[in-house]
């Protein structure tokens, strides 16, 4: 199962290497990774998606928590959380296909951000699942380049565990 792990860490050199080393040293692949400072400039938030077995990832989360530079780690997978990703995708767009692509982008609240002679570049922001859907539908048009920001996520403040009926 794919885990979305978020960590608040000291905004300092070496911290990223330590975290990535701990995860990759155990043979896990970090599928996406995003790091940036929070409202407190001395603290950064990292969001990672890591596929792997639940029990093993629980162990990884505990090990991450043990790192001195890591302030707090949460595996969001079992909680309510918000996630977003940004993609920039360049699609082959011969004259006859342009309208179709633009329409598809619009359906996904995406935006054509650059128009080239034989291609369009589309920007889209959304939940991970919607991004996947969009990219799947784009495929037949031939994707020339794709850049994804990696997922960013935050836990929902009202902290109700997933599946509970709390209002």
């Amino acid at each position: 199962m794919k885990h979305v792990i978020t960590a608040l860490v000291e905004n300092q050199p070496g911290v990223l290497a330590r975290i990535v080393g701990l995860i990759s040293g155990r043979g896990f692949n970090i599928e996406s990774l995003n790091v940036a400072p929070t409202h407190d400039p001395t603290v950064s938030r990292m969001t990672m998606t890591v596929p792997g077995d639940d029990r093993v990832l629980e162990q990884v989360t505990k090990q991450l928590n043990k790192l001195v530079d890591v302030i707090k780690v949460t595996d969001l997978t079992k909680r309510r959380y918000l996630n977003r990703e940004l993609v920039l995708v360049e699609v082959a767009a011969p004259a006859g296909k342009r309208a179709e692509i633009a329409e598809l982008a619009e359906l996904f609240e995406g935006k054509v951000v650059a128009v080239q002679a034989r291609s369009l570049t589309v920007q889209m922001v959304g939940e991970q699942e919607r991004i996947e859907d969009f990219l799947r539908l784009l495929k037949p048009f031939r994707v020339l380049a794709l850049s994804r920001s990696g997922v960013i996520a935050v836990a929902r403040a009202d902290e109700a565990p997933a599946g509970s009926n709390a209002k």
Partner: protein
Amino acid sequence: MRTGAQCVIDGLRDAGVDTLFGIPGGVVLDIFAAMYHSPLKFILTRHEQGATHMADGYARATGRVGCCLVTSGPGATNTVTGLATASMDGVPLVCITGQVMSSMIGNDAFQEADTMGITRAVTKHNYLVKSADDLPRIIAEAFYIASTGKPGPVVIDLPKDVQRAATAAVFDGKVNIRGYKPAVEGHPRQIVKLARAINRAKRPLLYAGGGAVAGDAAAELTALARKAAIPVTTTLMGLGAFPETDPLALRMLGMHGTVAANHAVSACDLLISIGARFDDRVTGKISEFAPRALKAHVDIDPSAIDKNVAADIPVVGHVKHVLRGLLDLVEPVERREWLAQVSDWQKTYPLTYDRNSAELLPQYVIEQIYEVTGGDAVIVTDVGQHQMWAAHFFKYTRPRTFLSSGGLGTMGYGLPAAIGAQAGLGSGRTVVTISGDGSIQMNFQELVVAVEHKLPVKAVILNNGHLGMVRQWQEMFYNREYSGSVLSQPGGAPYLPDFVKLAEAHGALGLRVTSRQQVAPALRKAIETDRPAVVECVVKPNENVYPMVPPGASLTEMIHSLA
């Protein structure tokens, strides 16, 4: 204003450091210059690996933080094995490594190594100091991190320009690291739950590891075991946490554990782990480990819990606090049936060997060390068969009297660790390192340090002409094909090296024994002299350690001999 180098020396003094182990080099000369005018005792080792093991032996024997100081590049890379050894066994060390000038880092400067990158995986934490202003705080933090929670080694990598820079910074506050708040008090509800389980259990068993020693919890462990009539087994790292002369002591469990301990694990209905980590050398086949037991796991390190074995009653906290809590809550009981069963195993299957053998057997030598010292010695081992025999045939009654590389299994640990232990304890204590002819050669050069500093360690070498533990595995599991495990070729020079001459060349007393009658007199002579001494015991070349649980087998499948 102070220089960075002066901040280092002051910081060490404030942390209570009295002794430092290491070797100088170009980029740490400023620290050495500042040290020259300080009361710190510097012990110049002959290899940086030796320095880290000495600091480690010092720390394990005294409970204080061990400290070393080395140069950049090769000085730093030579510490890696010692740091990894300390890291695996949770030993508090602070290791200061010099680094090239900040402006040269990353340029492949002379004697530059990426010490941060290289030591990241073998330390609890490491620092690259960018400004002398941070130095006083970093030194205080390093000692705090090394010695709290699950202890471990911390590296401070210190560029030369930072040592030379002037700063007005001081650190007098309390260390406060927002990402590092080790739990101390165990959760009261979990402690009550565990106490209830103990009161309900018919066949409880305490399983104590290195955490019981590191957490100074031997007295509490002993009190709990006696009050609630619970037999105790320890890991290699836990030896000394419970007196092995007590009838409740089942002694070591695991691959080379006693029959009583391994049977008790398999039969118990409640297994209470105190600062142990369910290592594979202890559990054997994990699915068949303590199959009938509710498992309680007390550990200061939350990540130790559920790592190898799922805990039914996890208690995160300092073992000493948790044991105190339990002690108030458990009821005094007798458990006659369970104790009778356990004592039956102990009587039927004692640790033993062929006491009538005409050849000198290694186990006999260890028993004689126990006799001659009256059991009052700090035993430090290397890694191999002799390590297991040292665990079997000497009885440990006090914590911090058995020092061994349990987690990493580092050959070459013994002699330098013994020197460090002796430096920490003073020359009044008897410190004996029990080693093999393989292991001792890995750091023999450090004997000079013992001689120079009048640290009268005694090194007993069980010379079987082989990398004995490897030979044993090859005999048992690899068709008796002794590939790469023979140290003394048949027909070769009789003593290669000649350990007696080698000892003498290093300025120590050297003795050789080849028969039973010679053992006790030689040991006495070695212990009576105030010099370091080496006693080479030429023992049977192919004796094996028993019992043995084959790797991956269940603890009940013990091999007692090859016959």
